[in-house]
């Protein structure tokens, strides 16, 4: 395949960026999108030009590092997959592909396609954990949890924290991310006790960090590579309301 690539180049946080155009030949349909960029980088390095910086690690959709906006959509238009799981067979020979970084006020560009998503760490630190101390192992059947609850928690736990939901949202809202984390932890008995404060603190932290609020655009669910459902947001909102009222009374 022969491609025309328009790629966002930006030397550093402080400088202005712009799209630059590159031609790339010899791409195979079974190459992944990132393997295509590897080839471009080999080509650039060979000609003395600086390779394009982009984030990646596991290259199998589980770590959440890859973060490209491909032809206007975070992780590309192929649904249910991350950038690293997007294969070139979804494009056609001769295509022009525009590649940009995730965009959100809370995700400043570090270089080229690499953005700083440590704001998500700050949200997790505000409540995305269970405070139970590890000690002795419990008897296996001490805490019975129904399969429905386990499935609900597991499905939410599949959030890899990539931030595509935020990059796609016109408010740059982190609600789907927070909802996934709070459902994952809060529907289980071990995480239930802290759930009201967890929800309150994580949402407040997100506000503080410049993430927007949710106006039910639902685009977050559409771009989520893990298919996290917006019904988690509704569940979280109920807890939030109750917790906010309770905290006002207290």
């Amino acid at each position, binding site marked *: 395949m022969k491609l025309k690539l328009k790629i966002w180049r930006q030397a*550093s946080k402080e400088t202005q960026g712009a799209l630059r155009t590159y031609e790339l030949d010899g*791409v*195979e349909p*079974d*190459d*992944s999108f*990132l*393997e*295509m960029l*590897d*080839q471009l980088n*080999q080509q650039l*390095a*060979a000609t*003395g*030009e*600086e*390779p394009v*910086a982009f984030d*990646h*690690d*596991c*290259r*199998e*959709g589980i*770590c959440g590092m890859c973060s490209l906006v491909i032809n206007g959509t975070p992780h590309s238009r192929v649904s*249910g*997959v991350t950038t690293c*799981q997007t*294969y070139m*067979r979804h494009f056609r020979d001769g295509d022009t592909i525009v590649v940009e970084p995730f965009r959100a006020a809370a995700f400043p560009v*570090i*270089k080229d396609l*690499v953005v700083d998503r*440590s704001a998500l*760490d700050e949200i*997790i*630190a*505000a*409540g*995305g*954990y269970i*405070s139970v101390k*590890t000690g002795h192992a419990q008897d296996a059947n001490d805490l019975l949890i129904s399969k429905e609850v386990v499935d609900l928690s597991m499905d939410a736990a599949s959030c890899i924290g990539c931030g595509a939901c935020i990059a796609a949202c016109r408010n740059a809202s982190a609600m789907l991310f927070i909802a996934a984390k709070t459902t994952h932890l809060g529907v289980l008995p071990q995480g239930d006790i802290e759930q009201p404060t967890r929800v309150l603190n994580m949402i407040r932290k997100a506000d503080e960090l410049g993430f927007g609020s949710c106006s039910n655009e639902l685009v977050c669910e559409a771009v989520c590579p893990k298919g996290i459902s917006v019904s988690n947001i509704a569940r979280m909102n109920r807890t939030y309301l109750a917790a906010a009222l309770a905290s006002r009374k207290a």
Partner: protein
Amino acid sequence: MMKQYGKGALHIHTRKEMVDLVVADGHARGIVARDLISGEITSHEADVVVLATGGYSNVYYLSTNAMTSNCSAIWRAYRKGAWLANPSFAQIHPTCVPRTGRHQSKLTLMSESLRNDGRVWVPDQAGDKRPPEQIPEAERDYYLERIYPSFGNLVPRDVASRNAKAQCDAGKGVGGNGQAVYLDFREALERLGHQVVEEKYGNIFDMYRQITDENPYETPMKIYPAAHYTMGGLWVDYDLMSNIPGLFVLGEANFSDHGANRLGASALMQGLADGYFIAPYTIQNYLVEHHHDQFSSAQTSFRDDTQAAEHRYQSFISNRGENLSEQFHHQLGSVMWNHVGMERSAPGLRQAIADLQQLATDFQGQVRVPGRTNDLNEQLEKAARIEDFIALGELMARDALNREESCGAHFRVEYQTEEHEARRNDEQFACVSVWQNQEATVPLNLQEPLVFRAVTPQTRSYT
């Protein structure tokens, strides 16, 4: 951890990499780190250093590990005197998506659980290029079920991997490059129905479909072994402390729990055990005795190590070579896969040592690193890692050559039973093989004997 971070009890340095261990008066005293965005080299003093930096399967170039997974932390510690134990014990996992293109950068693991219901087969006839649907039952060889009737498709990882390689070497491999075997769910789909299979394996099947564009509900999966886990690592005692006082090593980075062949699911268990139940207590014990220690040579060590790191990165950039580190990584991977992989032999290992020494020399002279040191520069990060990987690769080959027996994942063709099973030599090799770095000469091999009190090791047999 994130809770403690939120409280300000700990700092997280994202996008920062440890590039050296600082040792003063024989004690671990801190690290030298490089900021991956600004390129700044900094040093950090501490009462103890804990490495939990993972395994080194990327020495094979293609592996199931994440792309930035690397050996530099443990290799730098080894260079500073920490012992490396059993470096050649590497696990090659049988159920991975085979390599397809020449630009392939990593391999994806398909869960082990698939072998519960999938049946592994190849065509009876070498070179049979018919699509699987057209190969009648009588012309298929379910070789694991045939060779190991009582274990069938559930033989251990090393046995499954080696047999897949043997079938492919005999020309029976399938797929475009003949480097794959089938994992077939037809029988399970008939027995259990689509819904049950989907509930059990749905997300793995989806992942397979995304990668290969083939539907495993309709056509057999193709799988091939891939480097996956390294049992070897830095030597530690029962407190998880290395031979350098104050240096603790946790998780896949140490050698401690898995012997020559890790069993499924036990790596995460080790992570939990090391991190929750052992290190918090043993590190406290160490601190009680040592937190007032003053080391006279600390200042010089920090200064020297920081300068050495700065010099190292600068010299990569100033090198006027021709080839990117990627090319060296490719070559390294091919030597390791061919000679220090699923099957090893004395001539192959000797060849590997010679090849890797040459590769190390070539790397020094010919590597080219674009960009600058004081910038986010993935090529520069990679160059340092590849240099360490090449050196570790040679030590792995040395260790494999030294161990004149087969055991677990280490299979020496010279030492096998008539059924092609591992032939152990417990008289000479019931030991941990420990390596100590020597700057000017070949490394020193020490042996820590393994004493079995309750049980005696037996030759395993799956036939």
